[in-house]
């Protein structure tokens, strides 16, 4: 099927396209449900659990888009490291999660809805107007090719990211040192 062609009729459920679409929808649902739990849960730990579900959904989407390396990195880094760190921060900082925030202002509800609505409509309009063209496949998404690209074409980006991470590590050490001498 030519991706730039407009889809005029939905493919049948048990064709290859239909099943792919179904799997895609399931992944989207997992991601969205995880995100909703992360935003709306009253207990912070449950929000982290929602975030984990959301990240796993995103990882599944990456796998679906034929880049297993990025998918596995998503699980290893976001689920295995970021979520664990967030959970630690919650355990150290908030012993009592039943604390309620004060009542929000009277305008906060409508404002939130209006903002969300504008963003949603804007995204939909953009998506409808955009012309989706199929790009040529750059490489097989193998680790070797990604590594070669990182150290040749995109070496500047790669080094800049390393510097950002180095600064973050040094900053964390400085803060930890200051806390220890007190």
């Amino acid at each position, binding site marked *: 099927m030519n991706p730039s062609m407009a889809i005029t009729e939905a493919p049948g459920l048990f064709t290859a396209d239909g099943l792919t679409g179904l799997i895609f929808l399931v992944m989207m649902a997992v991601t969205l449900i995880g995100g909703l739990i992360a935003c709306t849960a009253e207990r912070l730990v449950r929000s982290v659990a929602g975030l*984990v579900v959301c990240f796993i959904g995103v990882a599944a989407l990456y796998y679906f888009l034929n880049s297993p*390396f990025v998918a596995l*990195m998503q699980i290893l880094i976001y*689920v*295995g490291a970021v979520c664990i760190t967030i959970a630690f921060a919650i355990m150290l900082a908030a012993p009592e999660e039943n604390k309620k925030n004060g009542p929000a202002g009277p305008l906060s509800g409508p404002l939130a809805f209006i903002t969300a609505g504008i963003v949603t409509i804007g995204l939909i309009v953009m998506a409808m107007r955009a012309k989706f063209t199929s790009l040529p496949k750059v490489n097989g998404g193998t680790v070797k090719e990604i590594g070669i690209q990182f150290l040749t074409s995109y070496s500047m980006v790669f080094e800049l990211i390393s510097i950002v991470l180095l600064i973050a590590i040094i900053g964390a050490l400085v803060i930890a040192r200051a806390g220890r001498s007190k």
Partner: protein
Amino acid sequence: MSLTLLNVIVAVVIAIAFAAANAAYLVWAERRGAARIQRRPGPNINGPFGLLQPPLDGIKLMTKQLMIPGGADKILFMVAPVLAMAPAIMSFVTIPFSEGIAAHNMELGVLVIFAFASMGAMAILFAGWGSRNKYSVMASVRAVSQNVSYEIPMLITAITVVMTTGSMDLKMISMAQSGGFWHWNIFPSLQSPLMPISFIIFFICSLAETNRAPFDLGEAESELVAGFHTEYGSMGFGLFFMGEYANIVIGASLTTILFLGGWDCPFGMFPGVWWFLLKIYLLIATFIWIRWTFPRTTIYGLLNLSWKILIPISLFNLLLTAGLLKVF
């Protein structure tokens, strides 16, 4: 297409069966081994050598009432044991047991196992926090900080092996070591003279990652009642136990593939799945032996060992290997 799907389903069922059978009989082996080291008989009543003990234990655990503490966070409490078991099963799918026996060999096998292993820490956190018991929370914080800090040297050591082999494919890594024990990664080579040290670091880390003694700080019963699973009874506890033993099998398999030549025979004869199984069960026997002969370390000793000794050594080893690979 449908044939590959069928293959995957059969492989997953076999992976679950293998994990469950191993979990059941490793508990028996552990108890018998402990008893032998402590000069007592151990479970020897039910069946010959007590071999019927694991199924009977399983029946007992499954028929017990599922108790959820009143103050617990019900959803997290129920999800945690499943989350402890599921990633372990997922990792089994990528492990090649011999040249032909691999459920789904992936190009990124090493990464798959590490990614799923890192999800195990979430299960421990949810179990501890969901129980709403201070001992459980403390135990889970300990266990997770230990898991996180030992994951780093383990990954760095694995990267060293991946660099010398030039592949993340577990099958390729095994095949690169075939043809006699002198080809195995455990022995020093020109590119990587510190391989025996890498092996020791990897072994220590796999002990710590699976929360085994002498690093079982998360289950220090004299300080923490029982650990992160204090509030769990019946099959919830059973699932944690099965997850732990499945992780031990995965750790032993990964050590075998990365360092001990996978299914290769030490003398170059009859390579096959039997050598793989022999190697992993010898490693597991060592795990059990270490557990019942070493005393438990302290939490500070444990974390210092990782951050101040293992990580610097493994980083140095990585740099050395990278340099030597460039030279030779």
